[in-house]
């Protein structure tokens, strides 16, 4: 067991890429640092730029608001730049309609196929809705099978 764990750890260390999880999504450590630096520079840079050019073209009391807007502009540009520079590290699987058996699903949800179908039979509103979705048949079949 011990050796296996060591081997696993070594594999993790030598594998090409390490990810860290921030706010529920994975990122590459060096990229997140760069992204933060780019964004801070762009937004505060925009603010400074505004502070230096707006006094010549705008009313004095609006300078600070306009500079803030330019700062936001900077952070949006940073968002676009960072999205171009750093591709998302996510794996997106586009699934087809689930092919799981209904029995298995019901079992996981601790429901019984027969009583499920009984409930649906006696409830015209739900029955109609499920019929339109095309899932009534599956429920009917599994309900009858378990009888």
């Amino acid at each position, binding site marked *: 067991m011990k050796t296996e764990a060591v081997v696993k750890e070594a594999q*993790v260390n030598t*594998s090409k890429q*390490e*990810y*860290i*999880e*921030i*706010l*529920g*999504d*994975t*990122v590459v*450590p060096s*990229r*997140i640092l*760069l*992204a*933060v630096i780019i*964004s*801070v520079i762009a*937004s*505060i840079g*925009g*603010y400074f730029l505004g502070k230096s050019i707006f006094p010549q073209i705008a009313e004095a009391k*609006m300078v*600070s*608001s306009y500079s*803030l807007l330019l*700062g*936001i502009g900077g952070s*949006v540009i*940073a*968002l676009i730049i*960072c*999205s171009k520079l*750093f*591709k*998302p*590290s*996510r*794996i*997106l699987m*586009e*699934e*087809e*309609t*689930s092919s799981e058996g*209904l029995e298995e*699903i019901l079992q996981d*949800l601790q*429901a019984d196929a027969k009583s*499920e179908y009984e409930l*649906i039979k006696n*409830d015209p*509103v*739900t029955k109609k*809705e499920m019929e339109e*979705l095309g*899932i009534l048949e599956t*429920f009917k079949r599994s309900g009858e099978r378990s009888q």
Partner: protein
Amino acid sequence: MSVLMISILFALAGALIFTLIGLVSGTDETAIIVPFTLLVILLGAPPEAVFSFFMAAVLSKHLTHAIPTALMGVPGDTTAVPLIDHASALRRLGVPHVALRKMLSGGLIGAFIALPTAVLFGQFLGQFADFFKSASGLIFTLAAILIAYFSKGKWVSVLMIVPFAFFIKSIDMFSFSVVEKHLSISFFLGIAIGPMFSDILVSLSSSARKSLVRSAPKEYHLAPEVKGWKGFFPNPFKVLTGRQTAHTAATSFVSSLTFAFSPVGMTSLMGEIVGSRNKGVYKKSTSSLAAMNGVTESTYIAEAIIPLLAFGIPLSPVALGPASPLFNAPPVFTSDPVNNLHNMLTPWEFFLYGLIGLVIASIIAYPFAMNYARTATVFVMKHISQEAIVGMFIGLACLLAFHEAGLVGIMLTLTMATVGGLLNRVLGVSSGVQFMIFYGSTYMITKLLGA
């Protein structure tokens, strides 16, 4: 330009921005809504427009966060966590699009019930406002103890109240000696971005990073989507059955009154109640989802409006989190003394400008989520990296802190983010507790130390 037009424009901006942000799964409401609302306030928007913006932002974000919840089984944000079980049951039955539609329709109904209920109830509670205002320091302190006990950290959160208040006052005194004004936006931003900032810090620490290291990128499973109606704007009352509409309306109404409880807690509770009254996997899941998403909307809206309208001091979890800038954003809004939307808007204006926000969000976010859920999710997942998003929010926080107090502001924000974020992540002292301690810190330290 009239105030009405400005409000409509800001509501439009709020709806557009947050319709897109809602697509990003797992985003923390406080970290995202606080900086944008502060920006709108500091840009000099009239109070009516600030309120419309906030309402549009909250509803849009909640409507679109139903998309990752239903189609990927990943909670759109913390309030969506209780919905995951029912959403994945429907996903496994092969009808994730039904989960999405029921959630969206429930959310819409919940929002429009919460607004008038909250305005009326807030007006009723307003008669006790003088008492609340005169005792605000004590109330903040007691509330801090109460919500600390109910936070993840439990007793450690209670234990941390006095040291954290001492810490806040100390850096407040020091920054005061440099910039000669008391800062608060910088404190706020620090608490708000704390969790994501501490994640970055942990990832940089060679001793602590192991807890966050993953050997592979996160996998997302996107379910197919089937369009089952004609036209662009499906009628929410037709998407839900009569019984579901009734259950959603009733739970949304009740949860509009319980403004002091946590939105996630109310959502779970109401979901349980509705779930127990509907039998059969399909019916139970669809009914619960509609009601629960209605409750997340109604608690959010009511928890922002009621304390704002009645007291002007932040006395609910939402008022301490995402809605906090509406109470306190010096120099424009302050909560001690009360000089914020509480004094600036009449109950009728709360209703009117709130309605503007909700209607605009419904026109934009609802049909968008109904029609383009899958396309939009694929775009965001493939093109917008988490790096860029986290970077943008930390950039915005630094910008706002710099706007308040230059380099001192940035240092204060990053210091707060470090201490607050680690307390939050490691000890479970949640941001709500930290906000409450911030509000109560002056009272506590004055009483304890006479300083």
